[in-house]
């Protein structure tokens, strides 16, 4: 019976493997959606495509870029009118026509956040911290209206934790326990967002049949709610 017991254990700790459409089911209007990736790398294309195809609206999207003209990038959400607000660091790109269109139509509010502050605010959320002081943006237009404090002789501003309702994460490889590996720089924003949302939806290129090397995991399965294989039906 040891073998059977082992199977039961694996099953219950295994993460649901779902289609992209199933993965994004139930995301409520107005949700804060964290979207991984940086500079077009590590973007959860399959999940974004599925989310754009729903009827959800008024999303607050947290994303480093707002679309770079790549197939299946976050531009889809702007094009489909799903976004009320973007919290972003580098929104403008020559090929990001969907975002610029939404801007021109006055459909979308933009909160511009320095990149390091953006990731740190989400890390604070994932780490259970209420907020932090950073020198970044102090004394600049992006620091205006923020609480200031001089610490160790440096002017700093207070930044609050940024929680997601949902995170859309692109990983390279997962095991059935939801442990993830990213390829090279594709973990950018993904690894932090995977810790910062109530529901963490992950797409991967492949799911390994054996557990990943326990010393070589980038995101532990404890953070992951579901797995979707990119390209699977």
């Amino acid at each position, binding site marked *: 019976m040891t073998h059977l*017991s*082992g199977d*039961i*254990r*694996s*099953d*219950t*700790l295994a993460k649901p493997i779902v289609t992209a459409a199933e993965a994004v089911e139930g995301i409520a209007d107005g949700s804060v959606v964290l979207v991984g990736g940086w500079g077009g790398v590590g973007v959860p294309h399959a999940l974004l495509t599925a989310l754009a195809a729903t009827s959800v609206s008024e999303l607050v999207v947290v994303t480093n870029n707002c679309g770079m003209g790549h197939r299946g990038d976050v531009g889809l959400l702007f094009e489909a009118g799903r976004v009320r607000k973007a919290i972003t660091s580098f929104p403008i790109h020559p090929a990001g026509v969907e975002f610029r269109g939404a801007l021109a139509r006055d459909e979308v509010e933009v909160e511009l956040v320095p990149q390091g502050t953006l990731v740190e605010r989400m*890390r604070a*959320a*994932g*780490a*259970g*911290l209420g907020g932090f002081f950073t020198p970044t943006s102090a004394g600049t237009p992006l620091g205006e209206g923020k609480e200031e404090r001089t610490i160790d002789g440096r002017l700093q501003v207070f930044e609050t934790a940024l929680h997601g309702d949902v995170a859309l994460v692109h990983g390279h490889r997962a*095991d*059935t*326990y939801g*442990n993830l590996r990213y390829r090279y720089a594709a973990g950018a924003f993904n690894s932090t967002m995977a*810790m910062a949302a109530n529901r963490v939806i992950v797409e991967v290129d492949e799911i390994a049949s054996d*557990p*990943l090397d*326990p*010393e070589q*995991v980038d995101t*532990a*399965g*404890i*953070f992951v709610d579901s797995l979707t294989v990119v390209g699977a039906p």
Partner: protein
Amino acid sequence: MSAIGWELPQWAERVAASLGDARYVNLGVGLPAKLPHYLASRSIMFHCENGIVGTGPAPDAGDEIPELIDASSNFVSLQPGGVVVPFEVSFSIIRGGHLDATVLGAYQVSAGGDLANWSIPGARIAGVGGAMDLAVGARRVIVMMHHTNRDGSPKIVDELTYPMTARGCVDVIVTNCAVIDVSPAGLIVRDVPEGMTIEELQGMTGAPLRLSVAGTRGR
């Protein structure tokens, strides 16, 4: 300590029931560290402060890996799917609400769910470790402790007299004499050993108890 309290197997069974379907759990040192033996059939990943998510049973003699230990500094194995995360991530897991539950030992728990489990009154020095992080961070805090001190004095009290670990953090107290929910309405007794009356239990308890409307032994 009541003579008619649960023995460890029955006691551990109550703790296990209190865990519900928790999958990621941190067990404190002392009494809770005895639980894995009784949870062997459950699908649980045990987290340890040092970064291990998924500690498994002690390895056979000779198979120990020096860098795989638990909070009691005992050698552990890794269960399938278990991983090691960076240390600061381990505390993000704890503080950030990523653990479904923690089971902690305690010196005292107050009627309001305040926890004391890291130091004794007047101690010149104590160790706190991750106790405060676990108490504020885990989604569900279950205390596993004897119902009274050895001298019979209550460990469940109106107000703590021991140094606090965290305010209002305890969800359930599982003693050898009762399973008690800490609720806004007060301490609700859900289960007692066969033959124990609520009056007997109240007599060993330093804060008012109420009986669960659903009766005892509800899961």
